[in-house]
C-alpha cells in the first residue's frame, strides 16, 4: 500500500507552519496599524461642519488671537467653543448676506445652538486640561499643528496615548516661553535664530527646554507619566 502522505507532504507541512506564523504576524500588524490609522484616530480628517469655518482666514489672514474665541483656554480644562454671539459680533457688520453664514444667522435669530462636530475628541476616561499646558509653556501648535494654515480644521496628530506620553516623558523638546504660547509664527531656536528666555539667548531647543523646565518647575517625566495625571 502506498504511503498515505507523499514525501512532498513534509514540505507542505513546513510551509504551512511558516505561512501560519507569517499570517498571524501579518494579522497582528494589520490590527496594530489599523487601530493607529487615521480611519480609527480620524487624524487628518476634515469632518463636515455646519459652517466651513476657516482658521486660516481668521488667524493668519485677520490675525485674530486664539483667545478671542477660545476664551477659557487659560482658565479651564476646556478651551471653549465660541457662542454664536461671538461670530455675530463681527458678522452682523461684515458678510451679512453671505450664504455660507446662513446657519450662524439662523442660530442667532432662533436662539438655537450651532452643532459642531468635534475634531479633537479624547476618550471619556482621559482628563486633559488646557489651562495647565498653556501655563507651562506648551504652544497651541504643539498639539493642534499648523491650525493657522487650515482652511478646514483637522486633527494634525493621532492624540493616542502613545503620542501624549512621547511628550510627557520628555517635555523639553516642546516647551516654549509662556509669552510665545499663542504665537503662531514662533520657531524653535536654531543656530541662526535664537530665542531669548530669562535674559539669555538660546540657540538650541534642548538647552532652552531645560531652562524652561527649571523656571516653570515642570515635573520630571517619571512624575508626569503617573497614571492619575490623566486618568481618574
Amino acid at each position: 500500500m502506498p504511503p498515505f502522505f507523499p514525501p512532498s507532504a513534509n514540505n507542505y507541512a513546513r510551509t504551512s507552519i511558516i505561512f501560519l506564523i507569517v499570517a498571524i504576524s501579518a494579522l497582528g500588524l494589520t490590527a496594530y496599524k489599523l487601530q493607529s490609522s487615521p480611519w480609527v484616530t480620524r487624524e487628518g480628517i476634515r469632518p463636515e461642519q455646519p459652517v466651513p469655518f476657516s482658521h486660516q482666514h481668521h488667524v493668519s489672514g485677520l490675525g485674530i488671537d486664539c483667545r478671542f474665541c477660545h476664551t477659557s483656554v487659560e482658565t479651564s480644562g476646556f478651551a471653549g467653543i465660541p457662542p454664536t454671539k461671538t461670530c455675530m459680533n463681527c458678522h452682523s457688520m461684515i458678510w451679512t448676506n453671505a450664504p455660507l453664514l446662513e446657519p450662524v444667522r439662523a442660530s442667532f435669530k432662533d436662539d438655537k445652538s450651532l452643532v459642531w462636530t468635534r475634531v479633537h475628541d479624547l476618550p471619556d476616561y482621559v482628563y486633559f486640561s488646557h489651562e495647565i499646558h498653556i501655563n507651562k509653556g506648551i504652544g497651541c501648535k504643539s498639539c493642534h499643528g499648523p491650525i493657522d494654515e487650515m482652511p478646514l480644521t483637522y486633527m494634525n496628530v493621532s492624540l493616542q496615548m502613545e503620542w501624549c506620553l512621547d511628550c510627557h516623558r520628555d517635555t523639553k523638546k516642546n516647551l516654549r516661553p509662556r509669552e510665545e504660547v499663542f504665537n503662531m509664527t514662533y520657531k524653535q531656536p536654531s543656530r541662526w535664530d535664537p530665542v531669548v528666555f530669562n535674559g539669555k539667548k538660546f540657540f538650541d531647543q534642548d538647552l532652552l527646554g531645560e531652562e524652561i523646565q527649571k523656571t516653570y518647575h515642570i515635573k520630571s517625566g517619571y512624575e508626569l507619566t503617573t497614571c492619575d495625571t490623566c486618568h481618574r
Partner: protein
Amino acid sequence: MADEKHNHESLNGETLVSIAPAKDTPATKLDLSDVRNKLAGHNGRRYWQSLEELSEEPGFDAMMQREFPRQASEWLDPVSRRGFLKLMSASLALAGLSACTKQPEESIVPYVQQPEELIPGKPIYYASVRPTAFGAQPILVETQMFRPTKVEGNPDHVFGKGSADAYTQASILDLYDPDRLQNVTKVGNTHTWSDFNGEMRDAALGDKSSGGAGIRFLTETVISPTVADQFKNVLKSYPQAKWYQYEAVNRDSARAASRQVFGQYVDAQYQLENADVIVSLDADFLSGGTFPGFLKLASDYAKKRKLEDEKAGMSRMYVVESQMTTTGGKAEHRLPLTASHIEMFASALASSVGAGGGGTLNNPDANNFLKTVAADLQANRGKCVVIPGEQQSPAVHALAAAMNSTLGNVGKTVVYTDTVEIVPTEQVAGLKELVADMNAGKVKLLVVIGGNPVYDAPADLKFLDAYEKVPLRAHITSNVNETSRHSHWNAPLAHYMECWSDARSYDGTVSIQQPTIEPLYGGKGYFELLAVFTEATGTTAYDGVRAYWQAQKKGTDFEAAWKKALHDGFIAGTAFTPKTVTAKSAPASTLQGNSAMEVVFRPDPTIYDGRFNNNGWLQELPKQVTKLTWDNAAMVSPKTAADNKLQDQYVAKINVNGVEIKAPVKVTPGHPDNSITLTLGYGRDFTGRVGTGTGYNAYVARTSTNPNVAFASSVQGTDEKIRLAVTQYQYPIEAGKNEGQTEEGRAMEERAIIREASLDEFRKNPDFANEGLLERESKDVTLYPNWTEDPTKVGMHQWGMAIDLNSCVGCNACVMACVAENNIAVVGKEQVLAGRAMHWIRIDTYFSSNGSFGGDVANPRAFFQPIPCQQCENAPCEPVCPVGATVHSTEGLNDMVYNRCVGTRYCSNNCPYKVRRFNFLLFSDWDTQSLYPLRNPDVTVRSRGVMEKCTYCVQRINAAKIKAEKRDGQLDPNGKPYDGRVREEDNLQTACQQTCPTDAIVFGNVADPNSRVSKIKAQSRNYALLGELNTRPRTTSIAEVRNPNPQLQPKQTETHG
C-alpha cells in the same frame, strides 16, 4: 444537611440568629448561652462585628476565609451555564475587534449667548439652604454648566461650618429622581398650571363670603419666614380658613413640655462645647439629621474629645436609651432601658438631683447607674447637660428641663430660644382637629403641600376616610404618593434647588434659598402656590422673598446687604438670642411601667419618615449599628429573641394596637430586653421604582395618643424568611484568626484593628496604641523596591489621611458624600445580599463586650471605623495586577486606571482591608436620561467588569494642583513666592472629610511637617491598621480614648490592654 443538624443541636439552647445561607456554607444558628460561655473564656478585650462572628461557628469562619464572603463572585443570574458559554464564545470572537472600534463621532454645542459668569469646565458654587423640619442646612451647591451635581455644607456659615449630614448629601438625587411628578393632573388627566390656579382661585373666592370657612391648608413644617408671612396674609383674606402643619416625625413632645413648663414654645439649644458631663435620656443626637441641631451638637461633642493637646480634658457621656444607636455606642456608659422605663429613670434621676420627679427603679444595675449619674451631675453643676430624646414623652422633656435648671446649666450648657418653626404647633393635635372638621363636612377645599398624610398620619385618625369626604382635594407634591392618589388635583412641587425661598437654621440664622436650576418639571414652590390665595398673584418667589427682607431691613443699603446675604449664604446677625424663661413645676409622670412587650416607633436612620423611600442612595446606605439596607426590620435584643422564639431574618407577627405587623427580625446587640423597635417609612403602597416592595409599614400601628410607644398584645415568630441585606460582616478585615495562637496572642492581634484606652490609661501610657505590637512594622522588610526612597520618583506632595476614632460618630455622612462625589452606582438589594455593594468608604462597626471598662453581649460598647482605601505604600494589590491597572503615583496614591482594568479581581483578593469594589454587572444607570446631569463630570462613570476604589478624590487633588502650579512664581499676600505646592490654606479636602460634622477625617500633605494631617499623625495615638503586614498605609487611625467613671467600672480586674 448541616443546617438541620445545627437546628437540632441548638433546640435545647436559645436559638438566636441565623445568617443568610451562602450556597455552599452551612447556615449557622447561634445560641446565647454558647456565646456567653465562649466569651467567659476570654479575658482580653474582644471586638466583634456581628453575633455570628462571636459564636465562632466553624461555618462562619469558613465563609469568611473565602476571597469574597458569600456569593459575590458567584454566577447568580438566571442564565444557564450553557447560555453563558454561548454568550462568552460570541463575545470572545468579537473581542479582538473591540480594539478596532472607532469612538463615535461627538458634537460640541456652544451657547448662542454664553452667560458671562460661566467658565466652561469649571464648577460654580451657589450658597443656599436645604430646608428641613429641624431648621435649614446651610449648603453650597456645586453646579457644572448650571447643573447641580453636588451639595456641600457652607463653610462660612456658623451652623455646621461646612459639614452636611447624609440626608443633605443624598437630597440631590431627589432632584433628578425620574419618578418625580411631571405634570399638573386632575383625576389622571393632564392640565396646566393656569387650570389648576383657576380652579383653586374659584373655589377660594366662592368661599370668600364665609371668610374661607371651608378652606384648609395642610403643609409640612414651615421654617421660612416669608412663607409664614404669606400664610398670615392668606389667613387675613380668609379669616375663617385654617393652616395646619404636620410631619410624622415631629417635635410634639418637646413642644408640649415647653408649653407646660415655660408657658410658651421654645427650642432648647444645647452647648456641648461647655459640657463636661452629658446625659442623654434616649436622645440619639449623634446619629444624623433625625435630631434637631445635629451638625452643631456633633461638632461640639467632638471638640471635647479630640485630645490633640494631651493635657486637655474630655467630656463624659452617659446614655440611657431604648435601642442601640451610635450615641449609645459612643457613650462612656450606656444603659439600655425600654422607652417607658426611661421616663421612670428620668423621674428618679430628677429626684436624685433635687429637681422634682420621684420614684425609684427596681433594677439594681439601673439604680447603680442612676446614682453614679446623679453624683456626676451634682459634681459638675453648670458644666453638665441632660438631653431628652425627641421620641420620649413630654414628661421626660419637662424633667430634663427641670434638671438643667436645678443644676444651673441654663445659660451655660443649654439656652432657650425662639423655635425654628415660624409658627410652632403641636402637630398631631392640629391634625386631629383637621380630621374632625373633615368628618363634620366643614372642609370644602383642602390644599396639601408636600407631605404624605394618607400614609403617615396616626392610624387611629383614619385620615383617608376623612380626606375622601372633602369635595375638592389638591396635593402639591414632588412625587406621586398615597396622598396624591386620593386627591383630585396633583401638581408638581419644586425641589429646594428649583425655587426661591428662605429658611432659618436651628440656631436661628436666616439664609436665602437660591435656586440653581430651572424647575425640571415646571414645579412651583410654596410662595408661588400661596400667591393664588393672596392678592399678590403674579409676584415671583424671588420678588416675594426680596420684598419681605427689604421690609425687615432697617438700614438703607438693602441692595448691598441682599447681595452679601446671597453670596455668604446667610444674613449676618439673625441668630436667635437666648430667652430668659421661667420654669413652672414639671408635670407629673403619666406613663406607668408596663410588663407587656413594648413597641417603639422610630424614624428610619436612612429613609427617615418615608420621604427618602425612592432615593436609591439612602436605601442602599447601611443603617447605623445594624448595617441593614433596603429594608426595615424589627429590632430586638438577643434575649428577647430567645424568649419569644424569634429568629434573625425570620418574620415576626407583632400584634399591636389591634393591628398585626409582619416584620423581619433583626437581633441587635445592645437593644433593651422586652422591647421591639420598628422604623418608619417603608412598606409604601405607592412609591417610585426604587422604593416599591421594600420593608413593612409601621405607621398602621401608630396612634395619635402615643405615637412613639405602644405595647404589643402578642409577638410570634414564624417560619417565613426574609433575607435582609446586611453589610455588617461582608468586608471582614482578617486579623488574629491564625490557628494555634494563644489566647493572649489573639487578643493582641485583635487589638490591632481597634485600639483604645481609658483616659487614665492614656495619661499613664500615651503610647498605648503602638506598644507591645510585634516588631514587624519595619521599612526594610519588603520584597518590592522601596519607591519612596528614590528621589527622582517622589512627588512634591505626599498625600495621607488620619481618621480620629474618638471623633467619628458613625453618622454615615461621609459614605453619602463619597457616593455623590464619585458617581458610585446603586446595586439593589439582591446585589447587596451577594456582597456587591459599591461604596468606596464604609463604616465598620465593632462591638466590645468585655474589657476594662465594661460591656456585655447584652450591652456592648460600639466603635465606628470609617474604612476608605488605605493607600498603602507597599500596596499588596499592585504587584498582583497582570495588566498594571493599579499602580502607585509619585504622590503616594494607589491609582486605579479603569480603562486598563480587565477584571481579574486579583487585587481585591490580595487587599487585606477589603476596600476594592468590583463592578460585577453594569451597575451604573446608563439608560435613565434624568440621571445624566447628576454625575460628576470629573470622575469616570465606570462600566461593568472594572475594579473601583477610593483614590482620595484624585479629581480634587488634580484641580488643586493645577491651581497651585498656575500661580507658581507669583507672590502670596505675605510677599512669599508660591512654589507650585498645594498649601494648607488652599483647603484641599476629600469629599468625606469635607462633609464630616466632627472633623474626624483629616487629609493633606504628609510631606509638609506643618500640615494639619502631619500634626495629627504625630500624635502618640496614631496607628496603622494591620501595620504588622508592612503595607505602610497612608490612611492611619487615631486610637480611641474614653473617659469612664471609675464608679461604674466592672468588678473583675483586667490585666490586658
